[in-house]
C-alpha cells in the first residue's frame, strides 16, 4: 500500500516538468499580436457633402491561415459617427498596381474598420483603397502599401493544443515503452470483461451460438475499430471452446476488417479448421434494416450470449431488450454517451465510455497496450490538475477580486481554449 502511494507521488512529480515547459512556451509566445495602426489625417479639398476620407488602410496577410486572404484595417472617416456624421458605409477597392485601376471588391456599413479579403491569389502584390460613402458623394483614402497573401507553416494559435497533444502522447508512449521493458503494471478489474469468459463458457455448455455486433458505424469511427479488436481477442477464446460465433455487420469495410481479424484469431488459436467465411457476414447499411435482421436472428437462433461493442444509436435499446427476452447474457459497450443509459439499464454488463477502449488492451494482456492505459491515466491527472487549479483560481477571483489572480485565472483558461 505504502509502496503504491510513493509511486503515485512520483508520477505526479513527473508532470511538473512538462507543465513548466508548457508554461514557458506560452509565456514566450505571449505577445505576437498585430501591429498598431498609424493615425493619418488626409484632408482633401472637397465639396460640402463629400465626406472626409478614411485613413490609408493598413494591410497585412491574414495570419496563421492557408493563404488567399488579406486583412485590411482603416481609420474611420471623421464624418463617421462624428463631424457631419453622414457616412453610410465603406467600399473596399483593390488593384494589382499602385496607380492602376481599382476594382470594387466589397462594401461594409459605417462604423466597421476591418475587412478580410478572401478572394486573393497568393504571392501577387495587391494595393487597397477604402472609399467612404455618403449617399452619392464619396472620398477615397490614399492607397495602401503593397501586400501579398501567403500560406503559413505553423498556427501559433494552437500552440497550447500542440503542447497538450505532445504531453499526452509523451506519457502514453513513455508507459508503453516501460511496459515493453517488462515493468509490471496494475490494471483494475473491469466487471464487464470478467463476464466475457463466463458468457463464452455458458454458450459452450448450452451448445448455443454467440452473437457479436460491432456497432453500426463504419471503420472511420474509433469505436468500431475497438469493437473489432475486442472481437479478435474474443474469437480466440471462442475458437478454443469450439463454440459457434455469428458476426453480422452493417458496413462492407467492417466486413473486410472483421473477417481478417477473426481469421487470424482462429489461426493463432490453432483452429483454422473451425474458421469459415460465414462467421462474418454483411446485412445492410441501413440502421433499422440491420436491427430488423438482428432482432429476427436473436429470436430464431437464441444465442446464449450477445455482445454489443462499438458505436450505437437508437437501436441500442431495441437490441438489448430483444436479447433480454431470449434470456441471453448481454455485454455492451459504447462511447456514445446518449446510448449508455439504455445499455446500463437493459444489459448485464456495460463498458462505460472509456472502458470500451481499455477493453481491447485489457483482453489482449499485451504489455504495450496495457501501458497505454496508464498513459491515458496520466491524461486524467493532467485534466484533474487543470480543473483543480482553474477552479481554485476562479474561486479566489470571486472572493478577493484581485486583478493578479484574475490574470492568472484567465491564463489557465486560455491554456485550454481552442484559440490560444
Amino acid at each position, binding site marked *: 500500500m505504502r509502496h*503504491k502511494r510513493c509511486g*503515485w507521488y512520483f508520477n505526479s512529480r513527473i508532470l511538473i516538468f512538462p507543465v513548466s515547459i508548457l508554461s514557458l512556451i506560452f509565456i514566450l509566445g505571449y505577445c505576437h499580436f498585430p501591429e498598431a495602426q498609424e493615425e493619418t489625417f488626409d484632408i482633401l479639398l472637397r465639396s460640402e457633402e463629400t465626406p472626409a476620407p478614411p485613413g490609408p488602410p493598413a494591410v497585412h496577410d491574414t495570419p496563421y491561415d492557408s493563404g488567399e486572404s488579406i486583412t485590411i484595417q482603416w481609420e474611420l472617416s471623421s464624418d463617421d459617427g462624428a463631424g457631419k456624421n453622414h457616412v453610410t458605409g465603406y467600399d473596399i477597392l483593390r488593384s494589382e498596381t499602385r496607380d492602376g485601376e481599382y476594382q470594387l471588391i466589397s462594401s461594409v456599413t459605417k462604423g466597421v474598420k476591418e475587412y478580410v479579403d478572401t478572394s486573393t491569389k497568393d504571392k501577387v502584390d495587391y494595393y487597397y483603397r477604402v472609399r467612404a460613402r455618403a449617399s452619392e458623394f464619396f472620398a477615397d483614402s490614399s492607397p495602401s502599401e503593397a501586400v501579398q497573401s501567403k500560406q503559413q507553416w505553423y498556427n501559433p494559435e494552437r500552440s*497550447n493544443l500542440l503542447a*497538450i*497533444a505532445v504531453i*499526452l502522447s509523451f506519457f502514453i508512449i513513455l508507459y508503453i515503452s516501460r511496459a515493453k521493458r517488462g515493468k509490471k*503494471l*496494475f*490494471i*483494475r478489474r*473491469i466487471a464487464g470483461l470478467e463476464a466475457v469468459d463466463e458468457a463464452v463458457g455458458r454458450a459452450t455448455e448450452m451448445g448455443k451460438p454467440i452473437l457479436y455486433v460491432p456497432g453500426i458505424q463504419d*471503420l*472511420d*469511427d*474509433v469505436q468500431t*475499430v475497438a469493437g473489432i479488436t475486442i472481437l479478435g481477442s474474443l474469437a480466440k477464446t471462442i475458437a478454443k471452446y469450439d463454440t459457434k460465433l455469428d458476426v453480422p455487420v452493417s458496413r462492407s469495410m467492417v466486413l*473486410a*476488417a472483421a473477417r*481478417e481479424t477473426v481469421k487470424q484469431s482462429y489461426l493463432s488459436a490453432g483452429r483454422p479448421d473451425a474458421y469459415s467465411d460465414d462467421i462474418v457476414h*454483411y*446485412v*445492410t*447499411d*441501413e440502421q433499422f*434494416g*440491420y436491427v*430488423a*435482421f438482428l*432482432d*429476427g436472428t436473436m*429470436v430464431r437462433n437464441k444465442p446464449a450470449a450477445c455482445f454489443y461493442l462499438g458505436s450505437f444509436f437508437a437501436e441500442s435499446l431495441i437490441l438489448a431488450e430483444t436479447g433480454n427476452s431470449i434470456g441471453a447474457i448481454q455485454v455492451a459497450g459504447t462511447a456514445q*454517451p*446518449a446510448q*449508455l*443509459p*439504455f445499455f*446500463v*439499464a437493459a444489459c448485464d454488463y456495460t463498458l*462505460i*465510455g*472509456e472502458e470500451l477502449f*481499455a477493453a481491447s488492451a485489457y483482453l489482449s494482456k499485451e504489455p504495450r497496450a496495457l501501458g497505454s*492505459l*496508464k498513459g491515458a*491515466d496520466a*491524461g*486524467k491527472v493532467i485534466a*484533474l490538475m*487543470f*480543473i*483543480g487549479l482553474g*477552479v481554485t483560481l*476562479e*474561486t479566489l477571483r*470571486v*472572493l478577493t477580486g484581485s486583478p493578479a489572480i484574475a490574470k492568472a*485565472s484567465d491564463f489557465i483558461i486560455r491554456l*485550454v*481554449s*481552442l484559440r490560444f
Partner: protein
Amino acid sequence: MYGLQVWIGALLTLMIFSFLYKDNPFYKFAEHLFVGVSAAYWMVVGVWGTMVPNMLAKIHPPLVRNVLPALATAEPEFHYIIPCILGILLLTRLITPIAWLSRWALAFIIGYTAGVRFSRYLQSDFIGQIKSSLIPIISVGDGGFSIGMTFSHIVLTVGVVCGLIYFFFSKEHKGAFGAASRVGIYILMVTFGASFGYTVMARISLLIGRMSFLGEWLGVIAGWFS
C-alpha cells in the same frame, strides 16, 4: 398511386408490429424485404451520390456530361485517383493470391480514422470539457452570495472529479481513492437515470407518428364504405 403507397406502407407497418407479439412469417417477410431493399438503397445512394460526383466527375469531368452537366466542364482534380486505387486494392480480397493487398487499403482507412479522431476528440471533448469545468465554487449572483448556486457548483466540480477518478485504470480503487470512485459511479448513475427518463417521452412520439399514419390508412378504408 398515393393510395397504393399508403396501403403498402400500412401493411408493412402492421407486419413489423406483429413482432411484438412473437416472431411470425409476416415479420420475416417484412424483415427480409427490408434487408434487401435497404442494402440496395444505400448502394445506389453511394454510386449516384458519391462515386459519380466525387470521383468520376473529379478525375475526368466529361464522363458525367449526361448525368451531371454542371460538373462536366470543371477542371479535373487528379488526386481523386488515390481513393480509386485504394478501392480497387480493397477488392483484391476477392482474388486469393493477392488478397493481402487489401490490407493496404484497410491500413490507410484505419490510419485516417486514428489521425482524425485523435485531433477531434482532443479539441472538442478533452480541452473543451476541461475548459467548461473551470468555474468558481462560490457563486456570487446579482443579489450577493448564492447558497443554491454555490451548492450546484460544488456538485458539478466534485461530480466531474469523482467521475474521472472512476475511470482510472492503473490504480486500485481503495481508501480515499476508492471512496471518490464510488461517488463517481453514483454520479454516473444519476446521469444515466436522468437521460433515460428524459428520453422516454421522445420515443413515445415516434409511436404516435406511426399510429397517426395507421389512422390515416383506416380513414382511406372508411372512405370507401361511406
